[in-house]
């Protein structure tokens, strides 16, 4: 069995698939959609702050 015999077919397959016109607008829309997603860090900040607060209260010496 020789997988090497399939190498020309793989090259041909790639060539066929590269012939489609790249939809630049679609790619732009995709990457801009990612950029425009607001990163909501508020819940994480609130949870972390509460945990620190609890630690400070509970771990006070005296």
């Amino acid at each position, binding site marked *: *069995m*020789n*997988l090497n*015999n*399939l*190498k*020309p*077919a*793989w090259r*041909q*397959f*790639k*060539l*066929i*698939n*590269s*012939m*489609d016109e*790249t939809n*630049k607008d679609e*790619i*732009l829309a*995709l*990457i801009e959609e*990612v950029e425009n997603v607001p990163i909501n860090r508020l819940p994480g900040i609130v949870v972390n702050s509460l945990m620190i607060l609890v630690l400070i209260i509970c771990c006070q010496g005296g």
Partner: protein
Amino acid sequence: MEKKKQYFIRIMSEHQGIIKSLCKAYYTDYEDQKDAYQDIVLQLWKSLENYRGESAIGTWIYRVSLNTLLAKVRNEKTKIITEPLQMSNLSTPSIMADGDIELLNMVLQSLKDIDKAIVILFLEGYKNKEMSAILGMSPTNISTRLNRVKSELKAKFKNLNEFK
């Protein structure tokens, strides 16, 4: 348009053959292929900042694309079920032609997800060490899997001249 976006679109245009071929190797349904293509484009965009040019751009595209596809396929509940090969179909004269894409598709569709990635990288001409870097597996593991796949294909496609 920003330079980074222009550069990215140029990369996508030049290497869309790789990405679309990989999507078609893993998904038979057009909508699934389109979905996978979008996932890969997004992942490549997110990973672009980390690309330092240490490897060829094609290698980077293979690494990101294959790992995105493998993760996607793994996470999907309704995973594509590889249909068992019908030996009767393999004797069709049209697929006996040298370098036939139909035969390539048949071989790829008969493989497990990771084995498929290894075979694709082999067909692309990568060595075991390079494949291990792309897929995050040890070279020994790659070598073992590749040898096993070759044996399995030999058994499955024993009626075809190309595999004798």
